[in-house]
């Protein structure tokens, strides 16, 4: 692609971007949210047409007007959100939309041939599962493999992977990266988009960095380092990316004792967080951390046994939790954290709406004033608080979720994967905010699958494995090795 330009009303999204990829090459595309990565990918996928510039495949200029044309040119997408159907089996997914038919009666499916071909491509990916396994029995990582199998079976020569590891565990991530290398060896060109710079260091042959809709440079294999990438992406040094650390914490500020979740009813979990402390919670996906967060927030059956500042709390619903100053920033922003169809103002004011109301009637001025104030403080980038949340970038959406709780008085904040899918700049802002909140005396529980984040942000780290708390590491004991051992249930060294 060369000289790609795209303007939207009010935004010059791409200002002459060039990108090229060879067969058997892995090019990482990095940049903050809003840098133009998605727009560029949508142009390759035929969703948008460029205003200027050209696309060439094998040297021939092409025009891509639809997803179907992209497929015909051998361009396949693996999206961040999985596009598989849970109600079908693997073969059904792989052949979705181009099912093989039998001769004779038109419209009869040739299941046998589909099964065979599916199993062959699963083999190639190292996923030894029968082709008739229903998708809803597979883990997220396996589903993603199915999606990759589908795209590859379309004879994709160029594979675009958008944040493929954002919902994978570490082992699954490692397997995916191995697969990327394997595909590269088979001659597939891969555009790899990720915010996880460690993966990029590991797998990319080149890294192309976008900032504000323009190329800022390309790093070759040897030059790719975390620091250089960050500097190029944000255009400045992020000196205090992780700002340590809580001091003078008041212990046993928030206590959880004997907590059981519906998913792991046989395990009791107890821990405490000090005022001013950030407790990181590590573990593999499915270790029961999200369920734990939901239980504390009153979303998982029976009321948990909680104490805040020594006083017992009754939390039977999120309403109760919120009344006591316990807030949850959920893992799935779009599903549980935000009403994406509503605007920023309506989202931020929702939990505290009665504060801006007299006799049940909302005063919009007071509401708007408060929301605009907090959004300014959090540096939410939007033209106005009347903007629909769906149109914001991931980082800004997360700030809106946070703004909601910061307008109230947080005593305990539970962050579930606080920076998933968020760019580096916004990440740093969120970490800083967490630290400020802790310093203001809040107890913070941070659930994260991002090892860097756990190690960088936490004052202590709790590790879970299959519903049980397998370890509590003090700052000095925290190491990737220790955490991983506890997370897989092996106990520390």
């Amino acid at each position, binding site marked *: 692609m060369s000289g790609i330009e795209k303007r*939207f*009303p009010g935004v010059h999204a791409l200002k002459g971007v060039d990108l090229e990829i060879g067969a058997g090459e892995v090019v990482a595309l990095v940049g903050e949210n809003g840098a133009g990565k998605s727009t560029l990918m949508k142009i390759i996928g035929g969703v*948008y047409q460029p205003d200027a510039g050209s696309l060439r495949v094998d040297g021939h200029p092409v025009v891509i007007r639809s997803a179907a044309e992209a497929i015909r040119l051998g361009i396949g997408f693996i999206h961040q959100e999985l596009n598989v159907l849970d109600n079908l089996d693997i073969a059904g997914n792989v052949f979705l939309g181009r099912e093989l038919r039998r001769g004779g009666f038109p419209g009869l499916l040739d299941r046998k041939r589909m099964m065979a071909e599916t199993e062959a491509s699963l083999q190639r990916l190292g996923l030894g599962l029968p082709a008739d396994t229903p998708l809803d029995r597979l883990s997220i990582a396996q589903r993603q493999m199915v999606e990759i199998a589908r795209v590859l079976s379309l004879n994709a020569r160029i594979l675009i992977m958008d944040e493929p590891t954002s919902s994978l565990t570490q082992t699954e991530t490692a397997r995916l990266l191995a697969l990327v290398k394997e595909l590269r060896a088979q001659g597939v060109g891969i555009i790899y988009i990720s915010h996880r710079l460690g993966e990029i260091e590991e797998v990319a042959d080149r890294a192309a960095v976008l900032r504000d809709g323009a190329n800022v440079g390309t790093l070759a294999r040897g030059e790719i380092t975390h620091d250089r990438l960050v500097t190029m992406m944000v255009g400045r040094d992020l000196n205090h990316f992780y700002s340590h650390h809580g001091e003078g914490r008041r212990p046993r500020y928030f206590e959880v004792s004997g907590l059981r979740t519906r998913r792991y009813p046989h395990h009791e979990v107890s821990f405490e967080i000090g005022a001013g402390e950030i407790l990181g919670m590590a573990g593999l996906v499915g270790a029961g951390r999200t369920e734990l967060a939901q239980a504390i*927030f009153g*979303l998982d059956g029976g009321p948990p046994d909680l104490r805040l500042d020594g006083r017992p709390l009754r939390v039977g*619903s*999120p*309403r109760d*939790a*919120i*009344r006591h100053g316990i807030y*949850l920033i*959920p893992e799935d922003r779009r*599903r*549980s*954290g*935000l*009403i*994406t*169809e*509503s605007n920023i103002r*309506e989202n931020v004011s*929702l*939990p505290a*709406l*009665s504060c801006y*109301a007299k006799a*049940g*009637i*909302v005063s919009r001025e007071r509401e708007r004033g408060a929301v605009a104030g907090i959004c300014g403080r959090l540096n939410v980038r939007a033209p106005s608080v009347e903007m629909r949340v769906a149109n914001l970038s991931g980082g800004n959406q997360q700030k809106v979720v946070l703004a*909601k709780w910061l307008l109230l008085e947080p005593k305990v904040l539970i962050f579930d994967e606080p920076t998933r899918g968020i760019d580096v700049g916004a990440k740093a802002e969120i970490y800083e905010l967490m630290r400020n909140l802790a310093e203001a005396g809040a107890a913070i529980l941070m659930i994260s699958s991002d090892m860097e984040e756990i190690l960088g942000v936490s004052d202590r780290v709790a590790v879970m494995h299959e519903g049980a708390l397998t370890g509590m590491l003090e700052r000095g004991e925290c190491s990737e090795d220790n955490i991983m051992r506890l997370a897989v249930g092996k106990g520390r060294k």
Partner: protein
Amino acid sequence: MKKELGILILLVALCAVVSVLNPRFLSGANLQNMARLIGAYGVFSIGLGLVIITSGIDLSVGSVFALLGVLLSMMLTQWGWPAAAAVIAVLALTMALGGLHGLLITRVRLQPFIVTLCGLLFYRGLARFIAGDETKGFGNSAGFEGLRDLANGSLFGIPAPFILLVIISLVMWVVLHRSVYGRYLFAVGRNEEAARYCGVNTRLVVTSAYVLSGLLAGIAGIIFAFYTNSVSPSSHGNFFELYGIAAAVLGGCSLRGGEGSIIGILLGTALLQVLQNLVNLLGIPSSLNFAVMGAVILAGVAADQVIKQRAAKTVK
């Protein structure tokens, strides 16, 4: 706002065309009659709109009208209840039924469509059974002139149901568009889970929408009973829920929930009544009544969708 503007233009254009083709459209008597019907239909359409905004639906309204009409007639003419007691009893009943629907939907987690479909069947059957499948009426009995006036009276030439609709609309406009509760309704309709995570008591909000809708349906049902003055349990109120749903959808309520406005619902109701009237005034065979309505609603909703998609494209 844009959505309402579209249907307003359609409404005005339709009125203009009909009044050119048949000047009787603008006669006092015709306008009065139309306003009376808009009043009665509007009241329960607003209720349906609230339910639709929570991403629910209520199919039982027409059958509730029959049940309530039959009971009202029996209370007043056979059992000799005072009018006030009968009204209170009827409204309590419709609110209780709404509450029951709400509980089945929020607690037992049944789908609104199924719950209220069963209601549609059940209340119709109940009405026919209670009435012994006979038409119940109010005849010329005395003692409830107030209720008759509510349906058939006028104040300064404006039909009483229309005045009632204006009052209810004003109240409901404040409730839906300015109050905390209204904001919760939209929040629940757009994303129930996120609303719950924000501490909104989503079950209460949804259930209360059905109760409110029940109250409004009760008020409208009383008007209809006295408007027709006789209640045939097998046909009274047939299809009325669909008029309400059509009015709400025409007025911009999305069946996916979270969208809609009082003004839109009012315009939708008015449009449907103008269409009914048009069929009569333009000499279109009355058997085509439903076909005309179906075609216009479809055209309206399709046009709206096309315009919306265009708009979305130019924005992006």
